[in-house]
C-alpha cells in the first residue's frame, strides 16, 4: 500500500507547493525532516536499549510469575472458552505481560502462539472464536506500564519533563481497553 501512497503524498505536496509558491519551504523541510528522523532514532537507541535490557532482567526473575499471579483472575474472567486449558492461559498471560512491559516485538510472537493453540481447539477454522477476538482486542489496546517510545520522542524534542505523560497514558489506555472489552463482550452476547 505504501508503494502507492508514499510517492503520491510527496508528489501532491510538491504540486501544491508549486501552485502556492512555497517550493523553497518544502525544499528545506525535506532535509530538516530526515534530520529529525536521525535525531529521534538516536534518542530511541538510548531509551530502547535501556528498557529492553531492564525487561530482559525482569523476565529472568520471579517478577514475571508475580505479575502472572496478579493477571490470572483477569485472564480467567476474559477468556471463558479456554478456561481449563492451562497451556493457552499461560501463553495469553505471557503475551499480556510483554505488552505491559512495552515489548511490542516480543508480545507479537507470544500472542501468535496463543492464537495457534486456540485455533487447534476451534471448530470452525475460518471464524474467530470469542477468546481469539478478546486477545486481539487486548493487543490493539496496547496497555503498558511505561510508554517508552513516546517518552523517547518527547526527549528527542527537548521536553522539560519527558515522563509527564505517564499518568495520562494510563488513564486513556485503561479507558480504551475497558470500552474495547465491553464492546467485545456485548458483541459476543449478541452472537455477532
Amino acid at each position, binding site marked *: 500500500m505504501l508503494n502507492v501512497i508514499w510517492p503520491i503524498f510527496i508528489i501532491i505536496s510538491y504540486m501544491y507547493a508549486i501552485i502556492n509558491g*512555497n517550493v523553497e519551504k*518544502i525544499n528545506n523541510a525535506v532535509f530538516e525532516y530526515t534530520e529529525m528522523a*536521525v535525531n529521534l532514532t538516536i534518542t530511541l*537507541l538510548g531509551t530502547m536499549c535501556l528498557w529492553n535490557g531492564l525487561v530482559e*532482567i525482569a523476565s529472568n526473575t520471579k517478577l514475571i510469575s508475580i505479575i502472572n499471579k496478579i493477571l490470572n483472575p483477569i485472564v480467567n474472567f476474559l477468556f471463558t472458552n479456554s478456561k481449563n486449558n492451562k497451556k493457552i492461559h499461560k501463553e495469553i498471560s505471557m503475551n499480556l505481560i510483554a505488552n505491559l512491559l512495552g515489548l511490542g516485538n516480543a508480545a507479537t510472537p507470544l500472542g501468535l502462539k496463543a492464537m495457534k493453540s486456540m485455533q487447534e481447539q476451534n471448530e470452525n477454522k475460518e471464524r*474467530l472464536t470469542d477468546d481469539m477476538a478478546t486477545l486481539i482486542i487486548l493487543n490493539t489496546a496496547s496497555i503498558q506500564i511505561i510508554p517508552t517510545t513516546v517518552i523517547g520522542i518527547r526527549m528527542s524534542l527537548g521536553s522539560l519533563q519527558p515522563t509527564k505523560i505517564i499518568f495520562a497514558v494510563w488513564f486513556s489506555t485503561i479507558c*480504551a481497553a475497558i*470500552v474495547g472489552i465491553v464492546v467485545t463482550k456485548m458483541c459476543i452476547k449478541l452472537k455477532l
Partner: protein
Amino acid sequence: MRMINYISIIAVPATIFLILLYGLIEKKAVFDIFIKGANDGVKMVIKIFPTLVGLFLAIGALSSSGVLDFIINLIKPILICTKIPPEIMPLAILRPISGSGSIAVATDIMKKYGVDSLIGLMVATIMGSTETTLYTIAVYTSSVNIKKTRFVLFAALAADITGMIASVVIWRILSKSFS
C-alpha cells in the same frame, strides 16, 4: 493534582529499582543479562530507521507544503463542535493504519506546537495509549488463516476512538487544575 504529577515522575525510577532489586536478590548476572537485552533494543531501532526516514520525508513534504493545513481546514467545522483540537486530526486518522507513519506525524505536531504544550501532551498521550490497530488485526488473523473476523475491527476502532477522546479530555482536566 500534585499526586498525579508525582506518580508520573516516580513510575520509571520505581520500575527500574524493583527490577534491579529482584535481579540482585535472586543473584542473577544482572549486567550480562542487561547487555543481552539492550543488544536486541539496538537491532529493533536500527531496523525501523529506514522506514522512519522515508515516512518523515513524506510527512515533512505534506506538512511544509500546506497540504496538511488545507485538509485540517476542510474538516475543522466538524471538529469545533466536538471540542477536539483540529491540530491532532492527522494523527487520529493515521494512528490505526501505520505505526512509523504515526510516529512521524506525532513528532511533526509536537515540534510545530511545542512538545510541552497542551496539544503536544495530548498527541503524546494518544501515541502512548493506542496501537496500530489494523496491522495488529491483520497479523493476528492471517497467522491462523482466519477470514471471518466478526466484530473485531469495530470493537478495536471503538477502543481507539475512546483512547483518543480520553487523551484529550484528561489533559483538558489536568491543565485546568494545574493553572
